[in-house]
């Protein structure tokens, strides 16, 4: 297949994948939440409410895009466009299986984190441009939360990098081939605290994705809808979709870095199916956590990062380097 054509197919594929995931993760989340809360969830539109996301999308598209008179028009309209882009770009470098993956960039891991930070910028712009006090408080929270959690996240990633010795995501996955004890998660020879590292990574992911119990940006009982308060119709819908797209990217990254990507846990038949299975299992955990725990306070969230997560991840980093030098 000629290269430009291949890239075009991948672009379409990734956009479809993100769109489908964003729409149907909403359905999954609503259904799962309903089950946690002893109610049926969406049932009316389509069988088991399966067409509900479609109905919601049509409703949101048919709504007027309101811009508050005092808002910064350009930035206000720009923010929804910016928020969606990084998730799509991240997916371009993520390998889904041995043969599936748009681009294998040698610096793939660095690229994902570089793009991931743009998401924060978009939320900040959205909050700032709305000229709403709740939005601005939310924007300030998003920035300090993401700065605080980027550090332990990157410390953990450096630990993984030291173990794998490469920033290419494909090579990281290839390094974990074989049964599940080859996964980075269970690479206890190099770092006996690897499961702890994974938990820190997952907590940081939740914070970076602004998911409960760390959903400070849109803490609805405090900040109404946070940075999205002034957004109506599909411009709100885009933020909503971006949240789910980021969950997909984050969980896919966790799968690649720690859970052996597309490799089967028993060493047989590696493939896309295993990747998706691990991905959706992690996404389910994200949903599960949201509907189980109350929200923390904002200052406690920062304390958790600076006083607990950063020291621990620093320690695992040092431990890993010492272990690698010794053995």
């Amino acid at each position, binding site marked *: 297949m000629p290269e430009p054509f291949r890239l075009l197919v991948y672009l379409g594929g990734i956009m479809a994948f993100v769109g489908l995931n964003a729409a149907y993760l909403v359905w999954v989340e609503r259904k799962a939440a309903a089950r946690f809360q002893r109610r049926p969830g969406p049932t009316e539109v389509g069988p088991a409410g399966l067409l509900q996301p479609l109905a919601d999308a049509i409703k949101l598209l048919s709504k007027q895009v309101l811009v508050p008179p005092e808002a910064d028009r350009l930035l206000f309209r720009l923010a929804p466009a910016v928020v969606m882009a990084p998730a799509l770009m991240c997916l371009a470098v993520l390998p889904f299986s041995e043969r599936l993956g748009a681009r294998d960039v040698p610096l793939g891991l660095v690229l994902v984190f570089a793009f991931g930070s743009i998401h924060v910028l978009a939320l900040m712009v959205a909050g700032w441009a709305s*000229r709403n006090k709740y939005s601005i408080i939310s924007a300030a929270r998003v920035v300090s939360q993401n700065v605080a959690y980027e550090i332990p996240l990157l410390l953990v990633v450096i630990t993984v990098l030291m173990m794998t010795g490469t920033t290419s995501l494909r090579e990281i996955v290839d390094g974990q081939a074989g049964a599940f004890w080859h996964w980075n998660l269970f690479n206890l020879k190099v770092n006996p605290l690897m499961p702890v590292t994974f938990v820190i990574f997952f907590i940081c992911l939740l914070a970076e994705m602004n998911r409960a119990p760390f959903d400070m940006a849109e803490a609805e009982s405090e900040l109404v809808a946070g940075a999205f308060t002034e957004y109506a119709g599909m411009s709100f819908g885009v933020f909503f979709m971006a949240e789910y797209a980021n969950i997909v990217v984050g969980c896919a990254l966790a799968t690649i870095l720690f859970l052996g990507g597309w490799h089967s846990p028993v060493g047989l038949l590696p493939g896309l199916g295993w990747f998706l299975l691990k991905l959706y299992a992690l996404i389910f955990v994200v949903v599960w956590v949201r509907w189980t725990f109350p929200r923390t306070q904002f200052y406690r969230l920062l304390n958790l990062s600076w006083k607990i997560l950063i020291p621990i991840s620093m320690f695992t980093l040092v431990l890993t380097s010492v272990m690698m030098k010794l053995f």
Partner: protein
Amino acid sequence: MLLEKTQIAETGPEGQEMFVLNLGPQHPATHGVLRVKLTMDGEYILHAEPVPGYIHRMHEKMGENRTYAQFLPNTSRIDYLSAMHYTHAFVGAVERAAGIQVPRRTEFVRVLTSELNRIASHLVWFGAFLLDLGGFTPLLYAFDDREQIMDLLEGLCGARLTYCYYRFGGLYNDVDDEFIEGTRAFVAYMRPRLELYRKLVTDNIILRKRLEGIGPIDANLCRQYGATGPVIRGAGVPYDVRRAEPYSIYPELDFEIVVFPQTDCMARYQVRMAELEQSLGIIEQVLDRLPAGPFQAKVPRVIKLPPGDTCYAVEAARGRFMVRIVSDGREIPYRVKLRTPSFANLALFEEATRGMMLPDALAVMGSLDLVIPDIDR
């Protein structure tokens, strides 16, 4: 809502840049149309000014223009979550002034339904409070349990929320076997549920971290502002109208006044959770001792109270609710004064939240269990 237009130009004492944040009247955390004007420095609250009045319906004035029987349904709409207690206070005041002797069975049924209503009210608070703290799931669990109480009371008097079940000298309707069996089944069902809530919610580490040591309201502050109910009992003061100013058959019943001395949000939370347990105990005692007999005393068709001043206080779900009726001998009262607990509990909000951060202040507001129509009446 616009940043520039409401910004205060002056700076605070230490060069703080202050701004005014309108919390409400349309805000998810105020559970109604309460508006609180917050003067903030960043996320710190410098001054909180509650602005009530958005749902004022002139209940007291309406009381001066209606006969006692006509005003009776109003009382259940003041605090729609503890309608039984409010009706009880008004009915009790009229009975006390007119010297009506209430049959014993009626008193037992009143206590029974009041305590059911208290459980329903505390369950709503439990769900709404957790919702304020960002946990959505307990709300649905609590409403599921509350639904059973509402079904029971609906079977008694037809209403699900604004019961007008008590009448002067009696009740609208006698309780039937179906209700008594249903209540027994509910008590048996509810005890394990409370245990479930303890495991699921009370012992949750995030919840404990959010509530312990947050928002201290001490006994002195409660006295200054007249706070009652779970708020004062969470400050370590064993004040309960059921014991302090005994009414109905409460002196004969065996129950504890739940007191937690820590004064923080967790203490108020635990007071209410323990009160659920106590109310279940009261219901069991009443069911065991329910006497037979008439449920309605002989009451004149047109009630005219002798000239004078009568008070009747009850322990509503949120604290002391008192009705004061001043009569000049006509069939319409001269003055009806309603002393509502939420109003007094809200009054201390400003002092309790000074210097606090926004999420903690909202936890305090949730722990006060405010019902906005009860503040405004």
